[in-house]
Each structure stands twice: as structure tokens, then as C-alpha cells.
């Protein structure tokens, strides 16, 4: 179960700066969306290098019983 970290700065005007950490790939967009729903409108967004790394994958192995 991966841990996600968020650094949130609420400026004195109420504007929110959000740093999303611990995501690889586009998974962070879903997290950003949550905060967008809570706070309001997206003013700007900038992806860092990890955004372009492959997304984490969960592998399931299913054994067939006879």
C-alpha cells in the first residue's frame, strides 16, 4: 500500500499551493482532482519529472485449481 504525501500551503489570500509527492505517472492527476473539488478552480499545474515515469503496477497471479 503506497504512501502519498501532500504539502499544502494556504496563502494569506486563500490561494492554495499543492505539492503532490510519491506518485509515478498520471496517478497524481486523480489526487490533484480531489483537492480541486475541495478548494475550487485550478489556476496552474506543473508536472515534475516523476510524472513521466511509468505508473506503478499491481500484479495478480491466478492459479487455476483442477
Amino acid at each position: 500500500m503506497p504512501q502519498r504525501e501532500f504539502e499544502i500551503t494556504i496563502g494569506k489570500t486563500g490561494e492554495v499551493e499543492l505539492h503532490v509527492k510519491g506518485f509515478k505517472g498520471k496517478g497524481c492527476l486523480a489526487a490533484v482532482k480531489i483537492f480541486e473539488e475541495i478548494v475550487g478552480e485550478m489556476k496552474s499545474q506543473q508536472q515534475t519529472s516523476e510524472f513521466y515515469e511509468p505508473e506503478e503496477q499491481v500484479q495478480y497471479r491466478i492459479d487455476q485449481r483442477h
Partner: protein
Amino acid sequence: MSAVCILTPVVIMAWPAFSAAVVAAASSLGYQIASEVSSQRPGEAVHKDAKAVQLEIERSEVVTNQLGRDQRIAVSREGVTVTFSRDARGKASLCVTGNGQSDEALRAAGEELSQAVVQQYVYQKLMGEMRSRGFNVVEEEVNEDRSIRLKVRHWEN
């Protein structure tokens, strides 16, 4: 770190949440609660010669029922009184009055307080929503510039 974004708040709240944000913001800036009434008009309590500046909180909507329509809350500090109310369009508005103050000084006081109200609204909403979604606030501090910094963790399935 995967992304950095800036979010502009949209303030939509019921009167109790709005007045709670006003009280918290006003207290942090040294204002005293003057009154929370349903009949007083903005600026009514101050001297007739007092100047008045009318402002509104952008991107705001105070949701209320018929009974709460005329509610107001007034706070004061050093001869300046700021009365918050809901205008006819449902926006949060404020009337800043004071004797012997320039329009600019009244406007500056009103803007400082209205920004603090929006900050308190965002803080209270974020804390409530994050708690209900299982986020843990592991650090919280108020910086010198009065910004609030939170460090939050969440375990994902």
C-alpha cells in the same frame, strides 16, 4: 514529487460556516466581535460622519434559507467596523466603516480581513474533507507571512 499546482478558492458555504470563518479570521487579526444580528444594516451602528467602503468576496456564495437572509456579523478594531452580510445575489459582502479613516485605509482593512476569511474557509474545509477521506495531517504551521503550511499523508489501497 510529481506535480505542483495552484488552486484558486471558490467560497460556497452556509451562513454558520461563513460566520465561523469570520470569527476565526477576525480574532487572528485582533478584531473583536461587535455583533451578530439579523436586523442591523451595514454601518448602522457607527457615527453618521463615518466613511464607508463596500467590498465583496470574489467567487463567493453564501447559501442560506429564508430565515437567514438578513443575517449580519460585525467585527471592530481600533475604530474600524467591518460588517459582513450576504448581498441580494447571494455573494458575501462587507461594509467597512470608520471615523477619521481614509477610503484607502478602510479598503485595505477590509481586503486584509476578507482575505483572512477566505483563508479560514479554505483551511476549515480542507481539514474537514481530508479528515473524512482518511488523510492524516502530520505537520501544521503558520508562517511569518500568515500562510498556513500543512503536510498530509495518505495510504492508498
